[in-house]
């Protein structure tokens, strides 16, 4: 019995050592996202063109292949209607503080003034979930975007 206990202890410690080494050597570099080269001015021009004359106060139907979303406390603007099964380049710009965009299974940290871009294909129907994943103030927990997929 004592022998079995000693073995159990050794095996346990060995497993923990492996886990520890694996954790410390996990790839700590970021996810492979497209590094955006877009300037803030280009983004703003694109956003204005997409949002239209009422500046995105009503949901915007996206015409081209580019989507522009402004992140600010505590919303993503504007609300969007996008085409199903379509490949888009989604550009994000944080206006006030650091936010993040969790969309399509990846997350981008959004630093104010720096445009981040990701390519994604929309699903056939329904909603494309978009959430802020970085604590950005008291309203953070309800900071989500509205992207509806419709023909």
């Amino acid at each position, binding site marked *: 019995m004592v022998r079995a206990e000693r073995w159990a202890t050794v095996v*346990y410690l060995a497993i923990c050592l492996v*886990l520890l080494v694996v*954790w410390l050597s996990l790839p*700590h*570099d*970021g996810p492979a996202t497209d590094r955006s080269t877009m300037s803030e001015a280009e983004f703003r021009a694109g956003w204005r063109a997409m949002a239209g004359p009422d500046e995105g106060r009503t949901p915007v139907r996206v015409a081209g292949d580019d989507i522009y979303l402004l992140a600010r406390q505590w919303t993503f603007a504007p609300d969007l209607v996008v085409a199903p099964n379509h490949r888009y380049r989604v550009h994000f710009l944080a206006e006030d503080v*650091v936010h993040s965009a969790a969309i399509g299974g990846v997350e981008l*940290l959004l630093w104010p003034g720096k445009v981040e871009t990701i390519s994604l294909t929309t699903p056939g129907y329904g909603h494309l979930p978009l959430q802020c994943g970085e*604590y950005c103030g008291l309203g953070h927990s*309800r900071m989500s975007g509205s992207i509806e997929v419709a023909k």
Partner: protein
Amino acid sequence: MSATAERRGWALLAVGALAVAGVLALLLAVSRTPHAQDWLPWSPEFFYRALITHVVLSIEVWFLACLGLLSATVAGGGRSGPAGLALAVAGTLLLLVPAIADQGEPSLNNYLPVLQHPLFYAGLLLFAGGIGLACLRLLPLLFRPPSVVAFAVACTGGVYFAALACFAVAALMIPAGTGAALFHERLFWGGGHVLQILNTALLLVCWQVLGERQWGRGPLPAGLTRAVFLSLLAFAWAAPLLYGRAEPLGLEHRRAFTALLWFALPLPSLLMGGGVALHLARQGGNRRSPASLALGLSLLVFAIGGVAGFFLGLADTRTPSHYHAVIGGVNLGLMGLFVVVVLPLLGRPPSGGKAAALQFHFYGWGQLVHALGFFLAGAAGVPRKSLGLDQGLDSLGKMAAMGVVGLGGGIAVIGGVIFVWGALRRLLTREAGDGPR
């Protein structure tokens, strides 16, 4: 100050923090119940302040004062303990001031939410320093432990220093000019995760102590138990190393610490929990003893919280479902520690019988219902950490689920009140053997 007086001081700080936190929790539970918010007079800001102070008192102060109490129990005597206690008490009093004065910008960042007020920060620093001072005397026990429990407590103290190291490194590395929200989130992110290792270690210490009382031995063989605590200490001290590989403002940093808990906690919890379950299943007549109840219910609530952990990362109330249940499990273990060991050790044994059992039942089952309600509400789409006004309770299902949250919270509070009331009453009566304070 005698060792007994110091232990009594830590016990009073721990339970006193719970008493104040409990008053705040009652207000919060009521405010989360549908329609109750209509007749509550306070401003939304005060609720955030109450919530933050409640979290800091009921989690940080309560758990770490229990660590101070354990340190005084396995390594009493000397001057550092009473000095640490004095600092911790002063710090706790200071960090209460902003909430009472309804001041300070609230920040609901993860792990250690803060009120942005100089007195709050000063209170946190004093408190953290006091616990550190008390834990210093534990370090020699790592090398020459007189018992399994002493080694376990020493490892828990070592975990605390790893958390302090993380906070310090983060404070040094985060650039000046970082926005308040991100600053607080990342300042407390790494060390906050290490504190979760500490909370788990505290529960495992309780299981060990209660097991020795109930069955005459711990849940696991002694050697394996030491290995379990050693592994928690090792994982905790791996955490500060990460700061060199993933800078604290990055996304990678955030992910690595989430992963840390998945690597560090399941195996020790499963082993010790499995041991507890086996002993409980095999034990004889005294199933209704406080030790047995505390062991069984803390295991059940903690295990359910662990399972809910698989739904973490969702920005709805399923995250607090995990958090509340896991913390509730640790609380049940510590309640057992107080009732079975701490109070009798201080010459103040609690009255046995049904009253002793009730506190565990109310608190344990209440926490389960509370967590279940949060889980259902989250599945129905209620966002986490929001007040009644922005909960978006637009469907009957969501409202029912949040009603269950309030109901469970209320039941748990009854159990907590019985515990706090009983413990405080016994701690505050002066006994002949107390000696000069």
